[in-house]
């Protein structure tokens, strides 16, 4: 399994990532997730977002999640890209792509990685509202709950 974890401010190109994920001649299926910044949250308009992370641990925690996915499903390639720094509404925030021989492994691993990334990887979002005030986004209980279905 080939894996790649990138944490940076720059945007990413989904076509390029898809091509790279499919580059093994055994790859028949690529499942991909892209998280996008919305322009409101919890009833307020949001005009910008600042994404903070814990350099080093972020990469380690994502690599650990990818390894756990790879022990559960036969994977050929995994790419995780997470942007940090200042982002505006409509921006792509996160990319998780998984290549596999067959689609069920690709889908399951892609969703598994997103679910664990949401609850383990040390990123924090701070929103800027239209009145200029800022607030740290609260973690969602539903994200912790969604891990339940991966219990073995």
């Amino acid at each position, binding site marked *: 399994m080939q894996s790649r974890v990138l944490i940076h401010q720059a945007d990413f190109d989904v076509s390029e990532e898809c091509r790279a994920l499919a580059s093994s001649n055994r790859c028949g299926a690529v499942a991909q997730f892209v*998280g996008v910044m919305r322009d409101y949250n919890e009833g307020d308009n949001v005009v910008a977002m600042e*994404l*903070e*992370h*814990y350099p*080093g*641990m972020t990469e*380690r*925690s994502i690599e650990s999640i990818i390894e756990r996915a790879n022990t559960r499903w036969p994977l050929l390639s995994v790419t995780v890209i*997470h942007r940090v720094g200042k982002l505006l509404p409509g921006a792509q*925030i*996160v990319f998780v792509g998984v290549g596999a021989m067959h689609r069920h492994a690709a889908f399951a691993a892609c969703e598994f990685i*997103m679910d664990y*990334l*949401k*609850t*383990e*990887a*040390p*990123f*924090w*979002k*701070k929103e800027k509202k239209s009145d200029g005030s800022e607030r*740290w*986004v*609260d*973690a969602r209980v539903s994200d912790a709950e969604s891990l339940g279905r991966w219990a073995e």
Partner: protein
Amino acid sequence: MIKVLFFAKYRELLGLGQMTVELHSTTTVADLKNRLVKEGGDHWAQALLADNTLCAVNQTIAHDGDAIADGDEVAFYPPVTGG
């Protein structure tokens, strides 16, 4: 000497992202929290003693009873909200 890091809301609350702490002997996560709160006061209690405060030792999730040794990197942070 250990390195202690704070992120996000806690970094802002404490007004610092990183500090070093002299370690006289091997200690636990809980001991370190209590020591920092005792020295620092209310804001430190809010950050370190909240029910959902997370701790990582050497970039791996750690719990109150886990040991901290000289040279370790310890981080305290609120629940994560990436993705």
